[in-house]
């Protein structure tokens, strides 16, 4: 087994590193199977067409303690439509997209999968399906030993979240274990689109300034303008979830054909990606 890839850049898995290589990455998130398997396939593909560099795919868990109301509802829709780990892998295999896919789910689903105890069977199957890495919001670095080992075994990345409250030793522990990219949580709280970008983003980015993994910022990003400011603040990528899930929810509420919702998602993705690019291309206004 190779030594674990880390925040210092030792052997990051290729796929995700590549996605961040040429300028700021746009990392959209949707719940797989929301509101149903078929529509969801179209939606994810629309994000890819809209310029996604990485896509985070939520595998729904019944107790999503890190999610705000928007994603909670999406999870309920997906579960009610029959999403399960098995179907998730089928979904990933059926997807016709060219960008790396990250599976975002809670630890119990990884843990329960397969006959064998622990998360290894899940990782093995995910690797086979073509998943590039994981985000597990209820798995802090301290508890991640077994999963980190399984990811290493199968060549997958394990992304950790750095919160506004993460400091000191905990920052170091995360740095040692992270790979692919680090998910910088822009504010305290749960996921959900906001009107304003948080002040705490910059100071969070500063604290991990010297990490070698790309830094993607999420939690509350809604518009191209947000994306622009986040990138200007130093992010290597922007993660956008609830703002896109909102489009799916609207589609459900208004009974829109899936193709139409897919078109809106593509458009929204394009705008967000453009915002991110603007943040990188123009010189910063108040640059010292």
């Amino acid at each position, binding site marked *: 087994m190779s030594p674990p890839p880390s925040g210092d850049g030792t052997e990051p898995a290729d796929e995700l590193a590549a996605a961040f290589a040429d300028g700021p990455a746009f990392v959209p998130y949707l719940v797989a199977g929301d509101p149903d398997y078929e529509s969801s396939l179209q939606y994810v593909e629309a994000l890819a067409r809209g310029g996604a560099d990485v896509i985070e795919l939520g595998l729904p868990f019944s107790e999503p*303690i890190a*999610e705000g109301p928007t994603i909670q509802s999406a999870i309920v829709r997906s579960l009610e439509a029959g999403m399960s*780990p098995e179907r998730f892998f089928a979904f990933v295999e059926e997807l016709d997209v060219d960008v790396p896919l990250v599976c975002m789910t809670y630890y*119990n689903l990884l843990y329960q999968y397969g006959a064998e105890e622990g998360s290894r069977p899940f990782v093995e199957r995910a690797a086979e399906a073509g998943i590039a890495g994981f985000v597990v919001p*209820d798995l802090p670095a*301290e508890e991640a030993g077994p999963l980190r080992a399984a990811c290493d075994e199968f060549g997958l990345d394990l992304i950790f979240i750095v919160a506004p409250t993460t400091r000191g030793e*905990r920052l170091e522990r995360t740095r040692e274990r992270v790979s692919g990219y680090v998910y910088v*949580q822009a504010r*305290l709280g749960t996921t959900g689109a906001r009107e304003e970008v948080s002040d705490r983003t910059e100071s969070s980015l500063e604290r991990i300034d010297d990490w070698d993994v790309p830094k993607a910022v999420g939690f509350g990003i809604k518009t191209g303008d947000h994306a622009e400011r986040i990138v200007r603040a130093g992010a290597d990528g922007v993660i956008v979830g609830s703002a896109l899930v909102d489009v799916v929810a609207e589609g459900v509420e208004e009974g829109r054909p899936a193709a139409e919702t897919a078109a809106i998602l593509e458009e929204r993705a394009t705008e967000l990606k453009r915002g991110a690019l603007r943040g990188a291309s123009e010189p910063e206004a108040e640059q010292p």
Partner: protein
Amino acid sequence: MSDTQFGRYGGQYVPEALMPALEELEDAYERYVLGNEDGFLDEFRERIRDFGGRPTPLGRADRLSDRYGREVYLKREDLLHGGAHKLNNALGQVLLAKYMGKERIIAETGAGQHGTATAMAAAHLGMPCEIYMGRTDVNRQRPNVFRMRINGAEVNPVDIGRGTLKEAISETMRDWSRTVEDSHYVIGSVVGPSPFPRMVRDFQAIISEEAREQIRERTGGLPDSVVACAGGGSNTMGMFHEFVPDEDVSLFAVEAGGSSLEVDEDAGVAPNSASLSTGADGVLHGARTRLLQDSDGQIMESHSVSAGLDYAGVGPELAYLVDEGRVTPVNVDDDAALEAFHRFSTSEGIIPALETAHAFAYLEEAGDELGEVVIVNVSGRGDKDLETVIEETDRRGIEAAPEMSVFDGGLR
């Protein structure tokens, strides 16, 4: 990090944003609770006595003793202020939050007993307080909602899922993720991420400290067995803790068997809350423990006629003690609990909480394993359950239940 675990159970499976708060809490727990820094523990003991009403008595149940041909003793946590064992923990944590300089208290509640206890402790210590409670529980535990509001706490109904304890805990964790810097989350049982299970147990252990002394005074020896109901397991661990080293004392944790021990995987529903008896290993609400879950790992909707036992998980230490063979998990169904509720009320003059009624239902079912001297923990009183009991009793045609025709125009 073995001090966050009990065997393979426990741990800290929480969002990153909460990890620093758990570290801070761990530190405060060690200094104040274990180390009595600034006289924390002295103040706690004084307040739980003068405000809470400790020690609670250990009394002999004369008529149950006759019925079962054993010496049945009752540890009377129903007499604690607020009407359940919950205040031991709530007062401890709210006081700790004060020592830690926190400015706001949040908590979840199922039956409303923990919410009530927390609201009372917060009012007593002058802390603002918000309680999350599933919508179903809000509607089936109205008196407790009134009590929380009257003590000045905000009550936030949670509309997600089936609207019971599981959803309320998830929602409180979400609040905490947002407000962790100045809020303390007073978790209501020996569940959640470390150090909660140990800390809550330590606050509740005062039950068995007293009971162990009291039974020795009464009988000159230790009991043959100790019986407590188990939801999350805080009254259970509180009642067991000091007896754990006494290997001759059998410990029985009585879970809610609900309407059946069979599960409906398709509907995602377990019509019981017997996670020790029927659950499997998994991770929920910050800890690895025994859970009611389907084969994918989705958490099931649990069920019990008693809101306070209606939870899909259980404290990790209890799961560990069961694995070790130190604690015996048993369970009784809804009907048996309702019958025990009425039997105990009419024969002892104490109306137990529906949760507690499960412990008494086990006395009826148990055989020689209980031995000659049994202590049952009366974890709470049943005032909060009156409407539920009357409706459920009527619906199920439970025998020996009193009629309720005294009201103008019947019951409602």
